[in-house]
């Protein structure tokens, strides 16, 4: 029991090396956020103009979808730790549905801007949300792997806790990045 307690206290979710990618990605996005901040600082009027043209409601809906997805991923991990593979798989599948919802809303948003002349603000909007969208797609692949491994747990090989944690951490990263992006692009 004592050993378990010690291990728990020093527990790093996922593989330690995974955090090179997670922190590295955070560092890159920090640069992106800095670029947006600089743009906001140097061109406040055109930034505000561009912001006014964004569909804040859709952005908020997407924020809620990702937050719900993250909660589902966290609870799926708890289920998986307890060996409830069917419930865990269900959680991951629901989280995938949230992620697909995010992609669909983004598509509606992009379609709404189609035909508008692309000014500086809109080009930043497209680039940063586009790069984030690529992260969402990669995250969906991670969740699909998690769901599949939980589905196979009974018949084949149980997925390691570390693997599920790592895949989940990536999804939470995608969520976190969006929240900052949402605030900077739609609200700030």
């Amino acid at each position, binding site marked *: 029991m004592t050993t378990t307690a010690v291990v728990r206290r020093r527990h790093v979710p996922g593989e330690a090396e995974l955090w090179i*990618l997670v922190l590295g990605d955070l560092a890159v996005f920090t640069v992106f956020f800095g*670029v947006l901040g600089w743009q906001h600082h140097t061109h406040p009027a055109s930034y505000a103009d561009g912001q006014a043209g964004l569909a804040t409601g859709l952005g908020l809906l997407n924020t809620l979808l990702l937050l719900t997805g993250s909660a589902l991923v966290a609870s799926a991990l708890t289920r998986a730790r307890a060996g409830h593979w069917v419930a865990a798989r269900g959680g991951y599948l629901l989280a995938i549905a949230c992620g697909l919802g995010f992609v669909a809303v983004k598509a509606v948003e992009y379609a709404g801007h189609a035909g508008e002349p692309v000014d*500086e603000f809109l080009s930043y909007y497209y*680039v940063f949300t586009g790069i984030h969208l690529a992260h969402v797609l990669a995250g969906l692949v991670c969740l699909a792997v998690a769901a599949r491994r939980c589905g196979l747990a009974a018949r084949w090989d149980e997925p390691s806790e570390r693997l599920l944690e790592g895949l989940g951490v990536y999804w939470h990263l995608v969520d976190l990045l969006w929240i900052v992006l949402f605030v900077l692009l739609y609200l700030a």
Partner: protein
Amino acid sequence: MNEDRFLLRAGAWSGLAYLLVFGTGWLVLAHFFPPIEPSADAAAVAERYREHHLTLMLAAVCIMVSTVAALPVSALLVRIVALIERGAGMLTLMMGFTLATFLVLNFYSGFSFATAAFRSDRAPDLVQYANDWGFLQFMGGIPMFLMAWVLLAYAVLVTDSREDPVLPRWVGYANLWIAVLYLPELLVFFFDDGVFAWDGLIGFWIPAILFIAFFLASPFVLRPVVRRHFLA
């Protein structure tokens, strides 16, 4: 197999040699650090090629020749993937193809700069056109080489054994991170000004620094693998 010890060692070190030859061209001779601005007009571009005709031609030749130095390290990377995969399977072949296209891309970037420098007194628009080819190719050519980093990450993280890995797992994650940072380079086609352009922070500086860091680090990662798995 009768391993050629010299070529294997060359594979471990040639990333550095590639960087030296390429850097001599790009950095020392051409001063493409930062690159010629993508927003510069044709007259200004042509003027630069006229004024520095010889050094720019030498730089272009260095960039073309650096392809030779990249060959051993490319071969070694393919061998390592084959070792991880225990044979020449899908990963090995994909790695081979993507590195082969990278070598072609590397050569033709230099070739395009050479074309721009070759008749630098012709119509400025044509010089600018050839110069565009060089930069757009090298910076925007990532679909040709991005997979090298992704596949190496796949080999390390998914295929390699966890108990006795050929390459440490941080190499896999670091490669994935590099791939993420290279991706925005595709934006050089859409911008001729600002952070995403081929002389901007995200279009040039970040990828350029990573490119240098990757090849600088390559001997330190590859030498132990060569010693342990190929020369033992």
